[in-house]
């Protein structure tokens, strides 16, 4: 009897010690997909093997509602230790005061020394303070299908917007072949890329202002750019692309219906899976009449909620995630540009033809001038919707381009950029 009791007591002690020696980190991602979740889980598994007693619980809300979910969880200070923060989410979370200042960690981190250009600025986008450790870069480039273009005796990718329009119009038959993979839903990046290419003086700090401080939509060049973009839809894109999102755009590209596409590097993972090597290529974005084009520097990263009780262990995981071998695995499998310059040198994949478009753009920062959205503006979320609504009206001829530009100008004047 005494022995049984002793054994029970020992078991209880053992159980309690196991229970209390374990730390569970709660982590949330915002760009969830089944494939991406698997990739992150693999990295988590490696970390847990290295750190017995640490468990990471990954929360993967559906992509469409992830931003709202993060906002709500953080504003209610629900238990979280690691949070994925996209560039568009950053300013809102900082203004809520729920993100930990990571400067003390980042200044001590070896990895930060190897960040590629622009990453330091990205991390310090808000209040010149690093609230996140970037884990990937997203810059748009031109994807094209040489096999389809060659059928029409077109070799190589268009180098200018004019050339792109000519090619797209030339191959469009209005039935089973179109040129451009238009984006109807959430068109912000796409419309702006084309419209801004008609300028040569965009402010590197704000895409919607010229270097002289004028709102771009007030400028006659914006009208030219907008008309061009509408024409691209009417003359070279499927009519139903007015309702296309990412899936439809990529689907049309894969099927060959539209062999020209602007997209982010995360498209590469999907295309590598759906198409055989060499069937698609990337090239620099076509330049506009201003001789330039202005891609934006999108980024995502890991942050730590200011109310987390496990900040140091959370940081350990973030550093582990960003180790070159893990970051390379994540970026290759998910499809993103790594933030660590060592990966581009050590991993041949990132030097392959798939990355020709980005490599050429990064080599010529004057022509391909990186700029930024006013994402720290309070009305950014509303802008996203307004631009989408107005684009639909423009494409359906329910609004004139002049009126649209007037609306855009009024919006940003009221927003105070």
């Amino acid at each position, binding site marked *: 009897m005494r022995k049984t009791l002793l054994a029970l007591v020992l078991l209880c002690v053992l159980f309690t010690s196991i229970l209390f020696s374990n730390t569970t980190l709660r982590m949330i991602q915002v760009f969830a997909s089944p494939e991406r979740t698997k990739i992150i889980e693999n990295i988590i598994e490696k970390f847990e093997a290295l750190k017995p007693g640490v468990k990471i619980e990954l929360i993967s809300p559906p992509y469409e509602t992830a931003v709202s979910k993060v*906002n709500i969880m953080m504003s209610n200070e629900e238990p979280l230790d690691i949070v994925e923060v996209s560039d568009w989410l950053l300013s809102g979370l900082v203004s809520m005061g729920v993100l930990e200042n990571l400067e003390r960690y980042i200044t001590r981190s070896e990895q930060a020394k190897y960040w590629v250009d622009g990453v330091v600025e990205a991390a310090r986008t808000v209040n010149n303070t690093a609230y996140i450790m970037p884990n990937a870069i997203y810059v748009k480039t031109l994807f094209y299908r040489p096999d389809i273009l060659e059928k029409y005796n077109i070799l190589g990718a268009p180098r200018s917007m004019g050339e792109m329009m000519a090619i797209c119009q030339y191959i469009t038959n209005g039935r089973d072949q179109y040129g451009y993979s238009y984006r109807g839903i959430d068109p912000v990046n796409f419309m702006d890329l084309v419209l801004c290419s008609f300028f040569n003086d965009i402010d590197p700090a704000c895409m919607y202002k010229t270097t002289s401080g004028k709102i771009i939509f007030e400028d006659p060049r914006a009208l030219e750019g907008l008309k061009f973009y509408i024409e691209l839809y009417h003359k070279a894109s499927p*009519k*139903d692309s007015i309702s296309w999102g990412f899936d439809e755009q990529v689907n*049309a590209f894969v099927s060959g219906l539209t062999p020209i596409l602007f997209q982010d590097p995360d498209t590469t993972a999907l295309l590598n899976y759906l198409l055989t090597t060499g069937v698609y290529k990337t090239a620099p974005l076509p330049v506009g009449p201003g001789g330039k084009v202005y891609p934006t520097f999108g980024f995502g990263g890991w942050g730590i909620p200011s109310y987390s009780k496990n900040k140091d262990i959370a940081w350990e995981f973030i550093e582990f995630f960003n180790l070159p071998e893990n970051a390379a695995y994540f970026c290759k499998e998910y499809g993103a540009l790594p933030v660590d310059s060592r990966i581009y040198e050590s991993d041949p994949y990132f030097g392959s033809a798939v990355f020709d478009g980005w490599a050429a753009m990064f080599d010529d920062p004057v022509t391909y001038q990186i700029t930024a959205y006013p994402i720290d503006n309070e009305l950014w979320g509303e802008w996203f919707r307004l631009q989408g609504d107005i684009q639909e009206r423009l494409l359906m001829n329910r609004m004139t381009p002049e009126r649209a530009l007037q609306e855009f100008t009024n919006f940003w004047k009221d927003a105070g950029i």
Partner: protein
Amino acid sequence: MPGSKQKKGAQAPFSSPEMRPHHSLKKKSRRFFFLLALFIPTFSVIGFLTIYPTIRGFILSFQNYTVFNIRRIRYIGLQNYERVLQSGDFGLILWNTFVWIFFSVLFQMLLGLGLALLMRKPFKGRGIYAGFVFYPWALSGFAIGLIWRWLFDGSFGIINDILIRLGIIERGISFFSDPVLAMVAVITVNIWYGFPFFAIMILAALQGIPQDVYESAWMDGANPINTFFKVTLPFIRPVLINTVLLRVIWVMNYPDIIYAMTRGGPAKATEILSVYMINIVFYENNNFSKASAVGVIIISILMVFTTFTYLVTNTKRMEL
């Protein structure tokens, strides 16, 4: 024997006539508390899941609650309502809501009625057939929307493919690039989804009509059309009215299909009030207060509609 009476009285104090009301009162109150105890779980669940959110939503609609100012929430009067009602698109959204409800419920009712009449008499395999017909009702609205979105797709959709192969059209129809076609598409899906419910309800009502009423009608020389209007319809009328009311409420509060298929586009052509509410949350910095104002507007419209319908249908019943 007063003593023995007293004793008797002491042994059975409630048997005296003065005490009887107390006894029955106590019994009644015990019964009341027992019934209350039975109701409490139901009331708690309803209160927690329905009444509290409704009251909270109502309060929210007068505040400035967005996720980004959660620590600076204050009352702002009718500002959210002003912003919603003064929005340039509100009239269009209201009209879309009317079109969406009217055509969805009308065709759901007609098809449901037709189906119920067809299935009224037993036939071989009726159960299997009913299972096939009723299964859309068991599916998730959002999943249905996503499936039909691909079916209607202008470039890869099977509907266009079939129409082209049949030689009816030469080129794919871009359902979602035309405001009218987009509305037709979402309403079609909603009809497909909702008519089994009408069929189930009407079939149940039809099965409750006594056979001898029909026999009398036939003996009086009524033809099938007369029988339908003079016998069938009056019998199923209460069920029909209640089902229409229920469906109007559900369809008005049902953004799933539209959100999955068009998100309210193109150019707000399919945006109804409940989709507008979701769009406010997703695209306007999680502005739950403004979205709540739309929610209160939806409730108000439905209350007016329900009261009006009951008044009209009751009056007609009186006239009959």
